[in-house]
């Protein structure tokens, strides 16, 4: 049970049952779908950037496992209020953390509550669950605000290469 307790922290169950920012957004400036064809996890990410490129609001809808849902919930809570640049940095650090490509120091507190997902790396087949919402966020931010439709985030998209290679 030790590994499993590393993966399923109490707050993951909490966010799975009561996901934060779990709703559609009508006036989003950016949005994107994420889909994992392997397990059927689906997410739609909504972002509203204000005039100074700050994440004024972010939310998600979708269905999937506890790791996916908690990860999306934590993500939206974490990046709300960040500038776009900060949000992208957080995405990058989060992906590095859960894929194990970089080892944060035990004292490194910069990830804050997000560090509870560090245990995911011990379960390579679950990494894609933890990263789906994050890739969808990147996809949303990459889309220009003039309504141009970008492709959805899937494990095959360029952005997810690092994840696929860990399977």
């Amino acid at each position, binding site marked *: *049970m030790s*590994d*499993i307790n590393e*993966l*399923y922290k109490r707050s993951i*169950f909490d966010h*799975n*049952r009561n996901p934060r920012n779990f709703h559609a957004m009508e006036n989003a400036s950016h949005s994107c779908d994420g889909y994992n064809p*392997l*397990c*059927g996890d689906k997410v739609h990410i909504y972002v509203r950037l204000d005039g100074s490129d700050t994440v004024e609001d972010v939310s998600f809808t979708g*269905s*999937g*496992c*506890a*790791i996916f849902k908690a990860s999306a919930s934590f993500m939206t809570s974490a990046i709300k209020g960040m500038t776009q640049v900060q949000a992208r940095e957080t995405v990058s650090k989060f992906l590095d953390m859960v894929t194990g490509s970089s080892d944060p120091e035990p004292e490194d507190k910069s990830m804050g509550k997000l560090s509870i997902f560090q245990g995911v790396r011990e*379960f390579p*087949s*679950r990494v894609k*669950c933890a990263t789906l919402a994050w890739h969808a966020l990147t996809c949303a931010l990459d889309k220009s605000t003039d309504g141009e439709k970008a492709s959805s985030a899937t494990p095959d998209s360029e952005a997810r290469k690092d994840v696929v290679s860990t399977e």
Partner: protein
Amino acid sequence: MAKVNEIDTRTWPQVDFAKIRDQFPVLASTVRGKPLAYLDNAATTQKPWAVIDRMREFDSREYATVRRGAYRFAEQATEEFEKVRGKVALFLGAGSAKEIVFTSGATMGVNLVAGSWGRKFIGQGDEIILSNLEHHANILPWQMLAQEKGAVIKVIPVNDAGELDMEEFDRLLTDRTRLVAVTHVANSIGTINPVRTICAKARAAGAVTLVDGAQAAPHMKIDVRQIGCDFYVLSAHKMYAPSGLGVLYGRKEVLEQTPPFLTGGDMIERVTFEKSTFAPPPHRFEAGTPATTQVIGLGAAIDYLDSVGMEHIERQEKKLLDYATELVSRIESVDIVGNARDKAAIISFTLADAHPHDVATILDSEGIAVRAGHHCAQPTMDRFCVPATTRASFSFYNTFEEVERLAEGIKQATELFRG
């Protein structure tokens, strides 16, 4: 919570299945510090020493090119290779070894039939009947063909228990039906389909039949002539033999009308730049050097299965299924997907509070290997309105204790997620 030990298992085993377990080295593995309970046999099966040793022996002492060597050593290898074709024919109840084609797997078997027989005999407006229990491998080759030819795909619906609606099948059969392709055993939920009835009705309607036997051949006695199918496909790695190999059985008359699929070396009679003629079946369908050592491994697997006895295997797996069904269905909030009267040793289920992937991870932490997902059968998942299930699939080498560990693991998952 009910005790798992209430069922009296003392009178169950008649063959010493505990000893059989020692014949599969992988089963002694540990994972995350726990003994491995391998319950993913519908995905792939583990190999007995008999298969591992025979392949090693062949590779170390007998390996040579088959069906093209002009020297004694290659002729001996060819004899061993072709002997397996005969064993497969007997194992499947085929009339002749010439009806046995080696492929790279069940997937390739279906693709071969769709791409050669189908492309020749299925045309605009013709109808192909599939079932709602098919693996994607028995859907997509037909869908591609139907799109190419303007043919129509019809689907036999499934009732809430996971059984085919045979009355509806009768209505779907028309004089435009060219092919009926159904699975023998549903990989996702375990239903054993009435393939004999299906093939008889299809034949009466003038349609050719293909049965996907990937999930059936390792678990029950197969007799293709009794089933009455025209084509039967299976995968070696699901029957304790190596991966990368499959078998296509084709009834002589139908196989002879089937044009080549892959072309290349060793499947010809005469080749010129203007025109070529092809070898008769089965070699017409075996272009290039075959998966030689894998075929030898399959031969050893069939000998092994024969030595245990398919009837013993079937009976033991039925006991494991009954015990698992009993224990799992007792757990509150579990919903077993697929409760067909005739069912192979597969339990697919969902939990009210936990997603199948979470359940699989909890089970994994206890050393229990199961599959979670759509099992390459999304139309079946759609039918039961679930995105995915957790699936435990048993082999005769599994134990009643492993079934109990599965039930305990599921309980643990329910408790964790109920919170």
